[in-house]
């Protein structure tokens, strides 16, 4: 207690708390539109940020909670489908036409609730079992959306979903969409970083490290884990809303098993020990996806991404972040816990 008190007496300024690397990165991301074409702005900038958000929701669960989930795309899919169902689409099925300020909070909230439910099912198990159960849930949701025509419009899904226009800005245009993605990503990134040092975040990490001890001390381990799922669901839900605006459509292909695995690939390739990892992984994934046509042709993209993934898992279990740390300890953030 005294330690914390003495720490608090010297309050560092806001800039000092944020740190030089973050400021430099922030400036770079803010100025990126000045040099980037529309294609680079949306297809690489915006898309990397929103895929990074999906990876971030997994990083929160896996890095801080020790729960590797393959259902994050399912949760994002719930939000994406909600936007299509409650908002407007041109498919002729549902599309209740509610305004964006109603559908977006509803979509994100639903994603959070669904995530908490998935969490409630899977927290009774650990490790591999969590992976297996979340993979089973993700696959089941995919087949269900594929077969259900009343709510999900079956195999074709929904098309013609537009990002809203407000404050005189069309948020589907490249520049506004990029800044929208950046804003959401920065808020979520900062929230995860801040939350990791909060009482809840520290408790969650303690549960990850020694669940039995935390239970013995008297913490409600299950409640903490389910709440972590809820928070990760909010982030994944935000990513899902951005994703459906980005694509303009949502179909079972959006929530397929391959997409579920892509999120894991992004998070693991980037690194699960720091929230910046998933964004790094997303950037590499998106760059590969865009430029793989020049390397191996569009058809064999999955072989390429699979091999890159295998290579990184074999070389560095901590992904790109781990590699950076091996090259120079000062380059990457300190590990969250001593290497074990």
């Amino acid at each position, binding site marked *: 207690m005294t330690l914390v008190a003495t720490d608090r007496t010297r309050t560092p300024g806001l800039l000092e708390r944020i740190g030089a690397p973050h400021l430099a990165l922030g400036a770079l991301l803010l100025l990126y539109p000045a040099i980037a074409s529309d294609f680079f702005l949306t297809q690489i900038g915006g898309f990397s940020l929103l895929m990074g958000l999906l990876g971030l929701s997994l990083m929160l669960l896996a890095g801080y909670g020790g729960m590797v989930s393959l259902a994050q795309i399912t949760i994002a899919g719930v939000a994406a489908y909600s936007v299509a169902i409650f908002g407007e689409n041109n498919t002729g099925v549902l599309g209740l036409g509610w305004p964006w300020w109603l559908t977006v909070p509803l979509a994100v909230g639903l994603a959070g609730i669904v995530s908490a439910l998935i969490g409630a099912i899977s927290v009774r198990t650990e490790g*591999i079992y969590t*992976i297996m*159960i979340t993979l089973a849930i993700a696959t*089941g949701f995919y087949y269900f959306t594929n*077969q259900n025509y009343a709510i999900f419009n079956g195999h074709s899904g929904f098309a013609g979903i537009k990002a809203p226009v407000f404050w005189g800005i069309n948020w589907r245009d490249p520049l506004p969409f990029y800044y929208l993605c950046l804003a959401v990503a920065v808020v979520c990134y900062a929230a995860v970083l801040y939350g990791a040092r909060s009482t809840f975040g520290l408790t969650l990490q303690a549960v990850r490290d020694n669940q039995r001890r935390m239970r013995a001390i008297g913490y409600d381990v299950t409640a903490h884990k389910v709440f972590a799922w809820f928070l990760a669901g909010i982030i994944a839900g935000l990513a899902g809303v951005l994703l459906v605006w980005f694509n303009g459509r949502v179909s079972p292909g959006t929530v397929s098993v391959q997409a579920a695995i892509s999120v894991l690939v992004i998070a693991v390739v980037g690194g699960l020990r720091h929230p910046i990892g998933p964004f790094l992984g997303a950037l590499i994934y998106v760059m590969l996806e865009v430029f793989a046509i020049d390397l191996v042709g569009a058809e064999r993209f999955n*072989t390429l991404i699979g091999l890159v993934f295998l290579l990184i*898992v074999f070389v560095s279990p901590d992904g790109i972040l781990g590699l950076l740390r091996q090259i120079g300890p000062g380059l990457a953030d300190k590990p969250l816990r001593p290497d074990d």
Partner: protein
Amino acid sequence: MSMRDSASTAIAAASLGRRPLWVGLALVGAAILVWLVVGLWPDWLNAILLSKKAFVSAILNGLTLAGLYFLVASGFTLVFGLMRNVNLAHGSLYLLGAYIGYEVATRTGYWLIGVAAGFLVLAVVGILMQVIVFRRLEGDDLRQTLVTIGISIVAADLMLAVWGGTTYQITPPLWLEGAVQTPILLAVRSNGSPVYLPYPFFRLVVLFLAIAIGVGLWLMLNKTRVGMMIRAGVDDRAMLSASGVNVHAVFAIVFAVGAGLAGLAGVIGGSALSVAPGEDVRYLLASLVVVIVGGMGSIMGAAIGALLIGLAEQIGLIYFPTYGVVLTFVIMVVTLAIRPQGIMGKAR
């Protein structure tokens, strides 16, 4: 031996005498079951269950599908039980087996050679995977899982490159084709001759093959020396290694049998249903749900899980087509809620 036998008979007789109510109920239940199969159904029962033909077909289809699921999932659970790694490329093994079976069976003209090739080639692939991949990552669950996911991504893409997106059908030989008359009475014609339910012979063979392999696996695990080592390895790997057993060799055998079973199931499934991209995911899902429900690492659990899921899927297909998948997941969630370790799983 005979003493124990007579003792158990005596106990059985005693419990029979002590619980007349339960025995009576069981007898009545068995009689109803026999009547349901061989007898004609009254109209009200037909009205509830669409028709006897639809219902009985759903049950039989469910049983044969369960046989297929058991073949895939038994290999999956066998590998997991001993080596504690989820081979998430297991669905890819199924699909590769199906393609190899198709190629060999069409080129040689002999279906049985295709089946054997499916088993053998995949057994070799399994050993290679064990030696090249898993031996390096021993004890590191998460990395094993990630690597097998990576392998499944690459494998699915390469299989798409080689065999394309077309659907293949492996043709079973003539002696396995055609339908047999089952002793299930459907109706009685006006001239008094009974109508029995015909059922595809091949599907019944699939079911009996699954039962035979299940019994074979049980015998291998419980009656052979290798089975003894495997069971010892499930309980305490370090102790098995310390007592002088070449654990690596045992692992390789288990992986060969597990992967070979997936390949065999691929050829059988490709003959009963069809071969197409995406089947790898379908059978991975089936294996996952079957072992989650049945209890991981248990052959008996895989059989129970496969029965539940196969029957649920086929009955769901007839009575609520869209929600068949949901029924499967209701079973999974309910099982997890009551027994997180699965029906036959050991509490850890």
